[in-house]
């Protein structure tokens, strides 16, 4: 038994000693929450690295008033785990603000927690409109656009290209369902026709049933509302059934993982995303080159720049008003035309960034290329079925 007491006493001593670290600058903690494990972890890891990059760059700057520390947590893309880690972060008084959530369902569950504990957060990836528009919480902000803007541009663009009929395949998460709702609305309003809508579960492996039906309907375009893993399976099974339609995706497939999963089959896939492509932005080149220098194991992925921008917004606010949640929140709410790597950021009264800028992408030779610069736009190559 003696051994127990010894261990216990040592432990209690350690408890007392912990937390007595000293530094010349005050340390300020900022949280990052995203999916670090599971199907969409590529985006979560890219986002975490990007937020970490923002912190490291700030710490390397000698004029920085504080020393920053990123507390990165995994929400597994599951609402129940999300609420847990959100509580952990929000209840920790040393954490001043958070860069939070890629998955919409998780963000929907956690906004109440942030509001309850008064923690200012900037959403870096979740696109469901209700996250900012479904409440009046001053704590919640978002740097990326919503799926409303994205789908309006997508519908306009596709109709201009002369496509008339769509088959919609969407996953039955809020992400996929929301995309289906807004895209269908815009396409029908503007004169297009939806010939069939298919809800599939996000982890469905076999799409033969849906795709056989789609083949019968013979649409010009297959619109896919969902994330990259499902998209990869759907696109490759389309090929097996010999469906010759354009594959049009959403922001959820704009990731290198999508191209890696498909190889040459990815050619000619279209997708739409909020914000300008990173390398086209004032600070974009330097973001990418600095990201390379830091030797992270994973690429920043499509939303890395948003996480970087969100972290920088928070850092700038803390530098200006000090590490106080209330003041930081007010400072964030007052953000107008703030320069960032994803373009100027302006929050409306719901904390939503009002960037209307949507970029159109097409995959050409194994890369996401901006439509205007692609050989498809110049007429050199043609999309399937046109």
């Amino acid at each position, binding site marked *: 038994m003696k051994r127990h007491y010894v261990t216990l006493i040592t*432990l209690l001593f350690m*408890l007392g000693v912990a937390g007595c670290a000293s530094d010349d600058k005050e340390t300020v903690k900022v949280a990052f929450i995203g999916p670090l494990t599971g199907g969409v972890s590529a985006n979560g890891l890219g986002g975490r690295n990007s937020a970490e990059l923002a912190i490291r760059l700030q710490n390397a700057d000698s004029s920085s008033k504080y020393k920053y520390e990123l507390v990165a*947590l995994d929400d597994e893309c599951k609402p*129940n785990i999300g609420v847990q880690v959100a509580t952990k972060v929000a209840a920790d008084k040393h954490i001043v603000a958070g860069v939070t959530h890629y998955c919409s*369902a998780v963000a*929907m569950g956690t906004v*109440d927690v942030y509001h309850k504990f008064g923690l200012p957060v900037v959403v870096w990836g979740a696109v469901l409109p209700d996250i900012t528009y479904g409440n009046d919480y001053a704590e919640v902000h978002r740097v990326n656009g919503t799926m409303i803007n994205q789908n309006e541009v997508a519908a306009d663009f596709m109709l201009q290209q002369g496509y008339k009929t769509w088959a919609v395949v969407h996953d*039955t998460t809020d992400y996929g369902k929301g995309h289906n709702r807004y895209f269908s609305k815009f396409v029908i309003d503007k004169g297009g026709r939806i010939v069939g809508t298919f809800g599939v579960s996000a982890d469905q492996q076999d799409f033969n049933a849906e795709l056989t039906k789609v083949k019968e309907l013979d649409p010009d375009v297959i619109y896919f509302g969902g994330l990259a893993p499902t998209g990869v399976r759907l696109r490759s099974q389309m090929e097996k059934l010999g469906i010759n339609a354009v594959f049009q995706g959403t922001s959820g497939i704009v990731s290198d993982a999508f191209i890696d999963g498909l190889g040459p089959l990815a050619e000619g896939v279209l997708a739409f995303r909020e914000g300008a492509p990173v390398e086209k932005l004032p600070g974009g080149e330097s973001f990418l080159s600095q990201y390379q220098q830091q030797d992270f194991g994973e690429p920043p992925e499509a939303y890395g720049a948003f996480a970087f921008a969100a972290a920088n917004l928070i850092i700038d606010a803390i530098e200006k008003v000090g590490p106080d949640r209330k003041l930081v929140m007010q400072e964030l709410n007052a953000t107008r035309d703030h320069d960032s790597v994803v373009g100027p950021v302006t929050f409306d009264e719901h904390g939503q960034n009002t960037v209307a800028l949507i970029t159109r992408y097409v995959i050409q030779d194994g890369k996401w290329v901006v439509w205007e610069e692609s050989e498809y736009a110049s007429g050199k190559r043609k999309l399937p079925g046109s």
Partner: protein
Amino acid sequence: MPITNRSYWPVVASAVFAAVFVLLFLYLEEQWEIAVLAVGLVAALYSAVRFGFLGRIEAAASDHPRTTIVVNFVAALAVIVLLRGEHFALLMLATVFLYVTVCLGLTIQFGYTGIVNFAGIAFFGIGAYTTAVLTAHTGVPHLLVIIIAGLVAGLIGSVLILPLLRTRGHYAALVTIAFGILFRTFLEVSDVLGGPQGLKVPGMQILGWSLNDNISLGPLGSVSFYASYAVVALLLAAGAYILVKRLERSWIGLNLDAIRTDETAAASFGIDVPRWKIFAFTVGNCLAGFAGAVYAMMSGFIAPASFNFGDSLLLVSIVLLGGSGNPLGVLPAALLVVVLPEKLQIIQEYRFLLFAVLVILILRFRPEGLLPRKMREYFAAWSRS
């Protein structure tokens, strides 16, 4: 009560030890502190097994069943009181108690009767969704809501009774797997129940007192609102524990054990097999429903993604890890399965890898679980005579 002259001090000592451990486990955050704690625990457990303390504690616990429950209950309350201001630690503790409640239900089903239920989280979810609907659309008092939620879970579970009685072993397991997946898919396409986006659930109110408010103690600081939920969850878990323990020691428990060991033999001794299977399955599901109701009000938001097949597997693994059929084993196992992944956040994307390795290691060295079930004692001092 059997007349014994052995003291109950081993029980008290182990409860105090466990309480201190849980307290430190929940409170400490630094990785090296957790590592030291884990090493300390392994050393302590090893010496407890090696020098026979564990056996003495178990013997004392079976001699003094009531004292054991009271002592452990008080120890758990003490942990809550000491953690009163720590929102996150209390949330984790309350979650552990709720998982314990569900797993005690699974113990009745699986540990005693031998019905494998791979849809545990679905019944938990039914309780949660019932609560969300009842609190949003009716004025039913919340304590009553919890009871109704449990009964609804039991009622919906009765859909499965016929296929479960017609099948055995792996086939019965398959029936429950199918139900678990069906449940989630149904929620996702059902827009009335919020669809994939989920539902908000208001906080619990008991007699006009809202559990979602922090309790202010004036100069002593304030108590986290999660403390109230932790107490409610603790009461639920304790109630479930007493129920399971009483069941085990009663003639009902004898019947259930007989059915698990050999259905044919049990039937030939005149035991009504379907009756007891239905009983065990329904009681277990009700417990899951009660826990789900409290969980919904505590977390304030429920969505289908929280009720995955993977979570059902987690529940089954808690029962197996604890030692199938031993309600006491559920406690450390639930603590491990719920809190450890959270404590491993520091290693981020590798945490589930390490977590899985740990679980495999535990089962390698204790294949019957952390606290395997002991032989049934038919008379006092049976095993020692």
